[in-house]
């Protein structure tokens, strides 16, 4: 039996990016806030200082900072007629764990979605006609526009100190930036990072072919910076231990480097760690949340009553908590009815690997988000007439590391071991480089999340079940983008190159990204969305999911974090400026 704690104004589930931003904003507004986090406390100096953070085995291979499957995992299958089996060891995507969440181990790639992405279905239908879209594709317009979100993108980038070069300030094109991006109210907070040889060669080749390369927007900072919360960040040192690692240098934006020091000073905020929320509690009408029940490490259950519940877990687990709490109608792919778990999407990535024998690349000098990119083939930046697919992605030279357990390229045909392997490994390491595409993943009727009928977590709750496969539209898109990238690669005069377009079926054992989106989609229609345009539950008005990637109606050709951060600020303004004055449905 859960013991009841004194009531709070706000209970926050999960203390990652959205949880820490919402906690700060709402505590600052005078509310009494408690955040409940299932993982441990983490801080730079104690958990990943530069004295031992550069440990590839521990962090990148044994995944020290990540969620352990024993704690929570999900089951997976490609198709509905298969039996889903548990992901026993995360490898295809890597949910975070602990205070800071995925904000600790991300790469810092800080991209905005395109203005047309926010009205995707309307835009594509207007330009190409409704017949262009496959009948089982369930993409939909966002309930917010780019213009709505622009100030909030700006706010999140200023929180992070993002380094980059604007391509469009208030409608005026800027040389050196991304000419395709939506308008920005201001330049990036800090100038672009420096570029290594690989990225420089890529940019030269892309320019020669008529493309518009620009530095990738990076929340690994090019110079020291003080953010609006008064927190000082350091200059990135290009150590090459970024994704899968915490930054020991205070250079990569994270809740630790951007929010927590200010948040923990607020007397009306409390963080409770190693405590897992079991469910969101509802009153007898089912229309109001009364708080949450959580279990601590001693197995004691606690009820935390609150006026407002904010679901800020990793996107996949937002969906699970909605399902186990019985909030919203679960999605049924057979009928197409229901919303919770609907429109799960991912990302469609590919690569072109190169060997440049006459160049010394020092590929280990890297950060998670440096590099030069082109956006010519993203979203609807290019004419899709007669291409047979919709969608796109950015592409370019953004190799994030050359850590040798996992990054050790050899020429094609090299044996996997023995004398020849050793020789090829030694001779190739300094001269190999990888280019990549980062493409959209649109949503489909047969890609969804629900509760597994067989497997349970350590707390006895059903695991979430993922049913997902790549569709022809995405594979065609990946083939097309990878061909374009290979053209640029060829212009770099490589000794050897190999294009690796994405092929199906989706393989949960091969790391691609941790951009798992959808399942608690925001939208204009409660029949096709879980949340309204303020990320507020249609069914339970004092429950918000403030911007986790689970709210994306589909995934676009960019990394999700900038949009996640923008939606967090968008929701926090909706709560402080509208909801608190008149608690109830905002739409």
């Amino acid at each position: 039996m859960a013991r009841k704690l004194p009531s709070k104004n706000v209970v926050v589930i999960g203390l990652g990016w959205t949880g820490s931003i919402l906690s700060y904003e709402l505590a600052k507004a005078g509310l009494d806030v408690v955040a409940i986090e299932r993982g441990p406390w983490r801080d730079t100096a104690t958990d990943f200082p530069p004295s031992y953070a550069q440990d590839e085995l521990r962090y990148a291979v044994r995944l020290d900072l990540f969620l352990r499957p024993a704690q929570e995992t999900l089951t997976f299958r490609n198709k509905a007629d298969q039996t889903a089996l548990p992901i026993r060891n995360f490898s295809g995507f890597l949910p975070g764990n602990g205070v800071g969440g995925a904000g600790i181990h991300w790469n810092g790639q800080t991209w905005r979605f395109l203005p047309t992405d926010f009205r995707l279905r309307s835009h594509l239908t207007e330009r190409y006609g409704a017949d262009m879209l496959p009948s089982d594709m369930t993409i939909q317009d966002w309930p917010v526009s780019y213009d709505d979100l622009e100030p909030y993108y700006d706010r999140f980038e200023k929180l992070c100190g993002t380094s980059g070069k604007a391509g469009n300030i208030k409608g005026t094109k800027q040389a050196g930036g991304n000419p395709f991006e939506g308008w920005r109210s201001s330049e990036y907070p800090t100038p672009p990072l420096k570029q290594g040889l690989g990225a420089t060669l890529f940019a030269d080749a892309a320019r020669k072919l008529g493309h518009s390369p620009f530095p990738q927007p990076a929340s690994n900072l090019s110079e020291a910076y003080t953010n609006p919360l008064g927190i000082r960040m350091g200059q990135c040192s290009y150590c090459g231990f970024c994704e899968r690692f915490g930054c020991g240098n205070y250079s990569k934006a994270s809740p630790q480097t951007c929010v927590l020091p200010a948040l923990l000073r607020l007397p009306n905020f409390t963080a409770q760690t190693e405590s897992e929320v079991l469910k969101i509690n509802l009153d007898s009408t089912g229309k109001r949340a009364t708080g949450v029940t959580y279990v601590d490490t001693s197995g004691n259950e606690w009820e935390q009553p609150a006026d407002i519940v904010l679901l800020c877990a990793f996107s996949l687990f937002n969906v699970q908590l909605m399902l186990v709490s019985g909030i919203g109608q679960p999605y049924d792919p057979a009928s197409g009815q229901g919303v919770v778990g609907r429109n799960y999407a991912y990302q469609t990535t590919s690569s072109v690997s190169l060997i440049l024998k006459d160049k010394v690349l020092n590929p280990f000098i890297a950060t998670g988000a440096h590099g030069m990119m082109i956006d010519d083939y993203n979203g609807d930046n290019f004419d899709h007439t007669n291409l047979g697919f919709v969608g796109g992605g950015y592409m370019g030279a953004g190799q994030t590391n050359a850590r040798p357990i996992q990054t050790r390229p050899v020429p094609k045909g090299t044996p996997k071991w023995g004398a020849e392997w050793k020789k090829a490994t030694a001779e190739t390491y300094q001269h190999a480089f990888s280019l990549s595409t980062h493409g959209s993943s649109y949503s489909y009727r047969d890609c969804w999340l629900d509760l597994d009928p067989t497997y349970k977590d350590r707390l006895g709750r059903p695991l979430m079940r993922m049913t997902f496969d790549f569709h022809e539209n995405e594979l065609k898109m990946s083939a097309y983008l990878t061909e374009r990238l290979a053209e640029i690669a060829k212009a770099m005069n490589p000794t050897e190159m190999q294009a690796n377009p994405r092929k199906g079926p989706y393989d949960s054992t091969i790391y691609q990204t941790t951009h798992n989106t959808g399942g608690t989609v925001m939208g204009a229609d409660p029949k096709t969305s879980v949340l309204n345009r303020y990320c507020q539950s249609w069914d339970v008005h004092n429950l918000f999911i403030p911007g986790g990637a689970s709210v994306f109606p589909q995934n676009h050709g960019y990394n999700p974090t900038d949009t996640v951060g923008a939606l967090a600020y968008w929701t926090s303004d909706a709560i402080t400026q509208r909801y608190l004055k008149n608690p109830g449905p905002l739409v």
Partner: protein
Amino acid sequence: MGCLARFKNLNFDGTFAFDLLWFGKSALINLHRGPKAFGVWVMESKAPLCLSRRSFLASTTALLATSVSVVHARTFHQGMPWAPGAADLPPLTRPGPWVFFTADEAATIEAIVDRLIPPDDRGPGGKDAGCAVFIDRQLAGPYGHSEGLYTRPPFMPGSSTQGYQNPDSPAGRYRNGLKALADHIGESNGGKKFRELTASDQDKLLSNLENGSIKLKDVEAKAFFAMLLQDTQQGFFADPIYGGNRDMVGWKLIGFPGARYDYRDWVERHNEPYPLPPVGIMGRADWAAKG
């Protein structure tokens, strides 16, 4: 035997002054001079604020490195927690007797890793690099016991896209795999052991494991080989604190500078090989010798 890590706080003027890890002096010297040490040297976590999740047992005899979960629910309020010396340090592996392998298993593994990564004029092979020691200590630790993985039944065969679906841990797979391999070699080579075969026969055997043309009793040869190769190469390129990559030979082979963290002066020096030698988490042998 204990250890501490101390950190100076940071100068937020864009520069950082860190005290590197401060280990017990004898441990630091021992590690680099390689005296007769025993088992796995492990550290005790103090963690007054529960900032560490690892707790280790130490002994002067061979022991298992056991990661014990000591998490407790905690409340943080009004200020960032801070305590000197609190850190979540990596475990250290020291030379010494085998922890997981029997002497016979270890001799086989040493022979195998030396064919997977043979010694040549570019540098040592897998054996002298410590790959067998690395695998031994990993199998005795959390990796060997599938710690943290989802190991609840039912176990059912699935498609390759669904990942490993077998209750056996890496430790069990090694034990069974090495036994099945020894039996196979004994039967097909008149009672010989792997290490008694010629190098070219060893390579032939490994190739046949790799392509699955050898059938081992109750063990899937291909998967066993893949695991052997993966773990050997991990040992060759992981930080030397884990027992492999001895003297950073793996990093020297390819030109990886190791656990460095500041390349700011080198980002834009295109086409120039980075000139400094590699450094591990515990520094370099020559640092200790000078100290």
